[in-house]
Every structure is written in structure tokens, then in C-alpha cells.
């Protein structure tokens, strides 16, 4: 196509044809109006469009429209060999790429039947980087959530601290955000020499910073007023809607796949699962969700410390250790269907594989993304609330649109 040619001619009807409103103006009752929120709006955390039926300030109905960031993950997955899908897996939940890779690699290893043979050191490194990334993801979640409802400073503080994690992970893998570090059967490289010490330094640095976060944001009266008893998600609705992750735990269920399934080396590690207790009035409100994430940061730090102890003690690096030793030259699983799941910062990430046993390419590679399912509960809890509370609820669900739209 010549470069001077206009690629896209704007026609006013285009918008209504590609993503038409579900609500019809002729069905509105008196005083009701349809307000369009997004897709380009900072409080929607990306490109989420909400069609909101309002009466004055009261929200009557919310219809989410998604798909603006659809990048055909599943189509790519059906056309690439298993190991080449990993960079696309990174781009699902792009603020927690290590966790995505961990689940994906675990699934393919389970299909190949080499899950039990992975060296312990590799598994501990995987858990270490995944938990580092979990902290970074929760920093984003809490920081941007504060910004959504008017607190600007915590965002900068958390971005400053997250930068240390990104630099650590960049040191290990070579890239800041999308790592391609965890490979099927092993790792890209072993940790760089000195990583454990720097990681311990980071843990020492971050520990006194967290109470500061609690003071400035979590216990802040303005924050509590904006989030307590807002967007209460009852437990039965949460389970029935398939909600997982910190949102489900905030509703009061101690359900964490790291403990329930006990995959990787998590059974050998001591950590607690924080749940919402309704300290600000109602179990499962926006404040509980934020507080669960905050407590999970502490738990992740505990996991990191235990991993570091193992990596410098029992499973210390040796000269002949090769993290790529088990990486298969040819990845051709037997014909089977497999559903694998794991806990990423937003909830349960699942992959459904169908291998036909004849090729290196998955016949079907489906991603069950937690943000997608978590977002589907939004219309249920956003009824009869104020518009400002709708923003607070979206932020507390912590969706990453890259994972919703895949």
C-alpha cells in the first residue's frame, strides 16, 4: 500500500456498527440516560468501554464492552510451536509476565511428563522471580487504584519501589517487562552471580516502606471513606461468577491455588493466605480487596526470603548446573487434553491444551484469563451505586486489559 494513501476514512456510522450499544434509547424510562465511559479513559485501566445507564448520579446498569486490545493470542497459539508461544503468554498480563510463564511452562511440562524431573533449583528460581513480579503487580494495582480515587503520592512511591524489582528482573532476563525467562523444562539462564545478595538488599529496603504505604493510603481516612462498604461482593455471587484471586479472598474464602493445588515448590514454603475480614464495615468491599493485596505483598516477601535461603543453602549454584539441561529439543506431547491452572496476582490463570500427538504446535491453546472472568462480575455489583463508586469498583477489581482481551 502506498504510504500517502489514507488507510482509514472516518465515517460517523463506524462507531455504532462495530460496537453498538446494548441499551436502546427507546427503552429508557423517564430521567434515565445512557452515558459512555471509555474506552480511552484513565480510570478504566486501559481500553475498557462501559455503557452506563444512569438516573442523575445513580447507576442503574453497566454494560462492559471489551475487545479493544484483542491480539489473537489463541490464534497465535495454534500456529506456533509450544516454546514460541511463551513471548505471547508474557503479553497476556503484561505487569506479571513471570507468573504467566510459570503457569504455561508448568502446563506443557505436565503434558510432556517431565514436571517431576525439573531440578529444585530451577523451581525455586521460578518461584522467586514469580513472587517478585507478584509484588510489582500488586504495587501497580494499589498505586493506580489510589490514583483513580484521588491519591497521587502513593502511585509515585510505589512506582519508585517497583523500579527496583524491574531492575532485578532485567538483570536476570534482559528485559524489563516481558521476560521470556521461564522456559519449558528450565530457565533461559541461571540467576546472575550476586543476584541473591541484591535481592536480599531489596527485601531489607522494601520492608520499612510498606508501613509507610499503609499510613499514607490504606489507613487514610479519605481512602477509607471512598472504599469502605463500596462494591460489596457477596461470597456466593463471587464463587458462582467464577471470580478468583484477591477479590475472592477479600470476600472471605481462603482459596489460593498455590496452597489448594500446591504446585511447584509452594508446599515446601511457609506462607499465609490473607482473607478479607471486613475491618472497615463489610466483608468483600473495595477496601478489603486493597488490604488483601497489601497483605499479600508481605506474604510474597516471606516467600522470597525462604527461596533465597534455599538458593544460597540447599540448592546453591554449582559450576556444572545447567538450567537448560531439561529443555526439550523437540516438544511433541502425546495426544491429550489438559487443563492447567495456577495463581497469578489477579487470580486463576488457566490454559486448556489439546495436543494431537503429531506436531509441535498445539491443536488448541485456550487461555482462561482471570481478569476476563473477574470483570464479568462488574455489572452485578454496580447496580444502584453512584458513578464515583463505579470508578472505585473498577479500580478495585484490578483488571489488566491485555489479559481481558488477550
Amino acid at each position, binding site marked *: *500500500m502506498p504510504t500517502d494513501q489514507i*488507510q*482509514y*476514512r472516518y465515517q460517523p456510522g*463506524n462507531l455504532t*456498527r*462495530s*460496537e*453498538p450499544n*446494548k441499551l436502546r434509547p427507546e427503552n429508557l424510562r423517564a430521567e434515565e440516560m445512557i452515558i459512555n465511559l471509555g474506552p480511552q479513559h484513565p480510570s478504566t485501566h486501559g481500553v475498557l468501554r462501559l455503557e452506563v445507564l444512569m438516573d442523575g448520579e445513580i447507576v442503574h446498569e453497566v454494560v462492559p464492552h*471489551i*475487545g479493544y486490545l*484483542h491480539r*489473537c493470542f*489463541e*490464534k497465535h497459539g*495454534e500456529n506456533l510451536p509450544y516454546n514460541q508461544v511463551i513471548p505471547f503468554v508474557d503479553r497476556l498480563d503484561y505487569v506479571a509476565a513471570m507468573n504467566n510463564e510459570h503457569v504455561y511452562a508448568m502446563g506443557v511440562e*505436565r503434558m510432556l511428563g517431565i514436571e517431576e524431573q525439573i531440578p529444585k533449583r530451577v523451581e525455586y528460581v521460578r518461584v522467586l522471580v514469580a513472587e517478585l513480579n507478584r509484588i510489582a503487580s500488586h504495587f501497580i494495582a494499589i498505586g493506580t487504584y489510589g490514583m483513580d480515587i484521588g491519591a497521587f503520592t502513593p502511585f509515585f512511591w510505589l512506582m519508585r519501589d517497583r523500579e527496583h524489582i524491574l531492575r532485578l528482573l532485567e538483570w536476570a532476563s534482559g528485559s524489563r517487562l516481558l521476560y521470556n525467562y521461564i522456559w519449558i523444562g528450565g530457565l533461559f539462564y541461571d540467576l546472575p552471580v550476586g543476584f541473591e545478595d541484591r535481592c536480599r538488599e531489596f527485601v531489607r529496603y522494601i520492608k520499612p516502606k510498606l508501613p509507610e504505604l499503609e499510613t499514607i493510603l490504606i489507613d487514610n481516612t479519605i481512602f477509607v471513606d471512598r472504599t469502605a462498604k463500596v462494591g460489596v461482593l457477596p461470597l456466593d*455471587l463471587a*464463587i*458462582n*461468577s*467464577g*471470580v478468583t484471586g484477591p477479590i475472592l479472598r477479600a470476600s472471605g*474464602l481462603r*482459596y489460593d491455588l498455590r496452597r*489448594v493445588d500446591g504446585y511447584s515448590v509452594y508446599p515446601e514454603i511457609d506462607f499465609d493466605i490473607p482473607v478479607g475480614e471486613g475491618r472497615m464495615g463489610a466483608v468483600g468491599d473495595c477496601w478489603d480487596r486493597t488490604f488483601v493485596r497489601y497483605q499479600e505483598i508481605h506474604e510474597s516477601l516471606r516467600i522470597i526470603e525462604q527461596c533465597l535461603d534455599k538458593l544460597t543453602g540447599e540448592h546453591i549454584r554449582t559450576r556444572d548446573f545447567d538450567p537448560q539441561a531439561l529443555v526439550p529439543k523437540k516438544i511433541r506431547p502425546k*495426544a*491429550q*487434553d*489438559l*487443563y492447567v*491452572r495456577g495463581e497469578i496476582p489477579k487470580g*486463576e490463570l*488457566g490454559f*486448556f491444551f*489439546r495436543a494431537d500427538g503429531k506436531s509441535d504446535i498445539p*491443536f*488448541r491453546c*485456550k487461555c*482462561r484469563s482471570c481478569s*476476563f*472472568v473477574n470483570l*464479568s*462480575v462488574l455489572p*452485578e455489583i454496580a447496580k444502584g451505586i453512584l458513578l464515583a463508586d463505579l470508578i472505585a469498583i473498577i479500580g478495585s477489581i484490578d483488571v489488566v486489559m491485555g489479559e481481558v*482481551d*488477550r
Partner: protein
Amino acid sequence: MTFENFNRLIAGISLQHEVKFDLNARPNAVLLSPDDLIPVCETLYRNPATYFDMLSCITGIDNGPAAGTMEVAYNLYSIPFDLHLMIKVILPREAAAVESVSHIWKSADWLEREVFDMYGIHFKNHPDLRRILMPADWEGHPLRKDYKHQEYYRDIKVEY
């Protein structure tokens, strides 16, 4: 969940077709005929011995024009009993349709919309069956094995 337990569970309901088991799948899979899906799902959901309260994932699978079938796989999980079960329904490729389970599990709402979007499988009695990821005026269902994308979408060349 073992197949003996499953057989004992569905002994009480009258099914129109024989139930087959797929030992090659993890978690263990049950192959149902589309007519039997709703009674089995309701039993699994309500029976106090299983109580499958969470529907994790719905996957559409296209076996290709040569095989002439499509499949829908449901991954169920029971939180209180820590049980997994996969249910698979095989549908003809032409005019594929199956009953919606969204009145049992609310999570099925969007997951079924996605399967409809990508495969064109119709879910009967679904409350709001619209496309979800692709634009409403997109032609065809992209994850079908014989899918050919359109040349232009709104004057934008689709081929890149």
C-alpha cells in the same frame, strides 16, 4: 473425580444417550450428548456429595472440516471437595448449538459469548449472546479451522 463416583452420581437421572469417558484427558473427562448436558450439570451443581460450585473455563474446539465436529469443553471445580471434572460435548459442525449453562453458573455468561464469537456455536437460552472480543460487524468466526479472514475491514487491509 473418578468415573465410578460419576456413574453413581448420575444413576438417579434418566439420560437419553450413553455416557462415554475420556481417559486421555486431565482432569478426567466425561463425554456427554448435548441433550444430557443440562440435567447432568444441574445434578453436579446441586448434589451435596459433589457440589461443583465453580465453572472455571469453557473451551470451544474445532476438529476441522474433515472430522466435521466441534467440541465444547467445560472445566468444573468443586471448592469444598477439591474435585475436578471436565465435561465435553461433541456437536456437528453445521449449525452447532448447545444449551447454555449460564443459569447455573454466572461465569458461563461471558465464557459462552467468547466461544460463540470465536466458533459460531450457538448457545440456546443464553441471556445475551453477542460477540464479545471481535467487532460486531466482523465476518466469520476466527478460530474455526477453515476460517478465511476478510480482505478489508472498514477500508483497513486485514492482511499485515
